[in-house]
């Protein structure tokens, strides 16, 4: 990369070789309008909004695809350029139904903004637009083709970022439209509902079912936090208004996901149906009744000191809470551990980061289902495969990654994956708790060159490890203390719970909560402050986008208060 010098609108601009005119202009704070261009997507050059005049070049150039070169003289708002942009906008407005007043994007729409910018004050061309059917077959978002300008951002997001390739274009000319798979309703397609298409749509063609008409950009608050639905720990941009959760967006240029989210992080938490625990509860005369924090904590403190006790945590909470939990049980001489199983180290290789998957030459997946859980890693594997990486899935059951893998092997054939990896550049092994000992033995010849990505099933596994919490089973003690956070217990755990005095700290009601003797409420992801440590080992900050209910306290705070009471 070398420096190049050009002038844009008479202003001297320094750019890097390989940058486009648009990128050079952006760096110099010169605004060139775009519709099909998006910084997270490949340059396209379809919408003709970014046309500029370049001295010495014939015709107008699309600045999003034209490389900046030494000595170039660029003009971005000449009469000629403006006239063409206006003409293109007039055609776009005549083609489909852009009657802004009834569109939920009105006020936040990139197309509408440009119409204002270039002074479209009437329809220049007749509007022959045919009414097209709205596709509401998907739960979380809706496609209204009548608002579509065919910029193809959604298609590129689907194939480049999510590597899912569900979206394409049908037909050509005036009949062109975005379709899924073989032109099936979106809800019946291969769509994985990651919502990336929704986030990049410049108009109101893709509509979020929850936040539509819930508030314009000027009305809402954005809070950046970290996703707690799995251990990948993607950055979230949480959109709220009046203490109401509207929408979750990905954050471009963030690590590790680069803006990609999955249905578990973007949509599902907004459709939570479980009943919230909104204040402390204590069992009186066989019934759980509301109590004050002092009373509830008093009972817990007394019980923890009066007999043998054990603390078991789902790692679904903050680093701070897990540390305070371990500290409390050290103080009362109780055992403390985590409930989820842990992935054991393989004994060879170097620790991989999530993004190591993206530039791998060979990816070996075993004992894990990243497309079902930690989905972003599954999408990253697809992305690497699109770039030519060989994916080998070693499994004796079904694995969603098999469909697009170069090979699917049984445990007995695991050696073949090592053969494939021999001589290849970067080898990444992605594994989970289901990995079999014979597969570990077979993969061992990969040696310390290989990158190893252990998919711990716990959401904040690294935080738990840092706090010294190892997997434990419920034991025969007088007092059992469960730190559940947002995670409802699974049936296997419930079956192992004995007749001990039970303290449960949880955000939602569940059978275990309903059996408890004392229940302490916890905040949920969107109300949390503190940190979570993701798979990459970075302690990522949590910022509360919503206030906790009045009678809820953060676990770390409640656990510290308990420790103080015990003294």
């Amino acid at each position, binding site marked *: 990369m070398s420096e190049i010098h050009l002038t844009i609108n008479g202003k001297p601009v320094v750019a890097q070789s390989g940058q486009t005119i648009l990128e050079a202009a952006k760096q110099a704070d010169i605004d060139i309008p775009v519709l099909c261009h998006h910084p997270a997507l490949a340059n396209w050059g379809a919408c003709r909004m970014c046309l500029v005049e370049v001295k010495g070049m014939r015709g107008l150039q699309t600045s999003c695809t034209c490389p900046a070169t030494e000595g170039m003289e660029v003009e971005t708002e000449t009469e000629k350029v403006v006239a063409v942009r206006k003409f293109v906008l007039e055609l776009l407005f005549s083609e489909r139904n852009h009657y802004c007043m009834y569109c939920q994007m009105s006020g936040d729409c990139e197309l509408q903004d440009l119409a204002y910018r270039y002074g479209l004050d009437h329809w220049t061309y007749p509007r022959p637009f045919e009414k097209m059917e709205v596709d509401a077959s998907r739960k979380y978002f809706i496609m209204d083709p009548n608002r579509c300008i065919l910029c193809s951002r959604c298609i590129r997001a689907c194939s480049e970022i999510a590597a899912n*390739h*569900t979206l*394409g274009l*049908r*037909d*050509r000319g005036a009949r062109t439209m975005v379709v*899924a*798979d*073989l032109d099936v309703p979106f809800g019946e397609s*291969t769509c994985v509902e990651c919502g990336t298409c929704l986030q990049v749509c410049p108009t109101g063609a893709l509509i979020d079912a929850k936040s539509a008409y819930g508030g314009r950009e000027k009305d809402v608050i954005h809070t950046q936090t970290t996703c707690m639905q799995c251990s990948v720990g993607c950055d979230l941009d949480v959109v709220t208004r009046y203490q109401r959760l509207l929408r979750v967006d990905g954050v471009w240029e963030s690590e590790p996901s680069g803006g990609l989210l999955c249905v578990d992080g973007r949509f599902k938490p907004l459709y939570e149906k479980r009943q919230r625990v909104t204040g402390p509860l204590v069992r009186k005369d066989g019934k759980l009744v509301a109590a004050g924090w002092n009373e509830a904590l008093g009972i817990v403190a007394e019980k923890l000191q009066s007999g043998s006790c054990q603390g078991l945590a789902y790692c679904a909470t903050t680093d701070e809470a897990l540390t305070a939990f371990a500290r409390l049980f050290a103080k009362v001489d109780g055992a403390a551990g985590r409930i989820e199983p842990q992935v054991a180290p393989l004994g060879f290789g170097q620790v991989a980061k999530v993004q190591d998957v993206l530039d791998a030459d060979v990816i070996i997946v075993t004992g894990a289902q990243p497309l079902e859980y930690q989905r972003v890693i599954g999408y990253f594997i697809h992305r690497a495969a699109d770039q030519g990486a060989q994916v080998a899935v070693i499994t004796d059951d079904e694995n969603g990654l098999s469909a697009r893998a170069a090979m699917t092997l049984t445990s007995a054939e695991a050696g073949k994956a090592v053969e494939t990896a021999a001589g290849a550049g970067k080898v990444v092994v992605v594994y989970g708790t289901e990995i079999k000992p014979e597969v570990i033995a077979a993969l061992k010849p990969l040696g310390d060159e290989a990158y190893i990505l252990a998919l711990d099933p716990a959401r904040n596994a690294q935080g738990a490890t840092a706090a010294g919490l190892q997997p434990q089973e419920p034991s025969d003690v007088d007092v059992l203390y469960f730190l559940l956070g947002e995670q409802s217990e699974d049936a296997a755990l419930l079956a192992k719970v004995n007749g001990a005095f039970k303290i449960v700290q949880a955000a939602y009601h569940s059978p275990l909560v309903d059996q408890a003797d004392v229940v302490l409420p916890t905040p949920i992801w969107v109300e949390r402050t503190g940190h979570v440590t993701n798979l990459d080992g970075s302690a990522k900050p949590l910022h509360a986008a919503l206030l906790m209910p009045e009678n809820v306290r953060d676990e770390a705070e409640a656990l510290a208060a308990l420790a103080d009471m015990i003294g």
Partner: protein
Amino acid sequence: MEERMMHQVDETVARYGSTDEALVEILRDLSQQAGYLDRPTLAAVAKKLAVPESRVFSVASFYSMISVEPLGKHVIRMCQDAPCHVAGGRKIWETLEQALGIQFGQTTSDGQWTLMPTSCIGLCAVGPVMMIDDEVFGNLTPEKVNEILARYREQDGGAA
């Protein structure tokens, strides 16, 4: 039925090679064999070439020589561009619609005829021009069109 289709797909893919680059050729050939590409055929091609269904559909629906909808036994493609238009194309257009009782873009209910507009086919000197399947007809007049249609009907067994 499905077996036959799978066999056709296998054979066609084998002929052009199982690569992404051969997609257009494979689709065109299959479309010609069966008259159009139904969804199971498109899905089979996608699977066979390991390309996304969305891409197969985009390509198949883009080209006019490939159809993803059932077409009539004969496909009439009438030039809609300016040189044919000024040479009297409008009259031919109307004659075709009247004679077949359908509009452009439609197929007759007996499945005999599909009427489609096309862009210039490079025979402007003899406009107005139309194609019926692979055959080209120039210097068209309404009378000539009716004669041609009658001839085809006769060949097809004297159906009205």
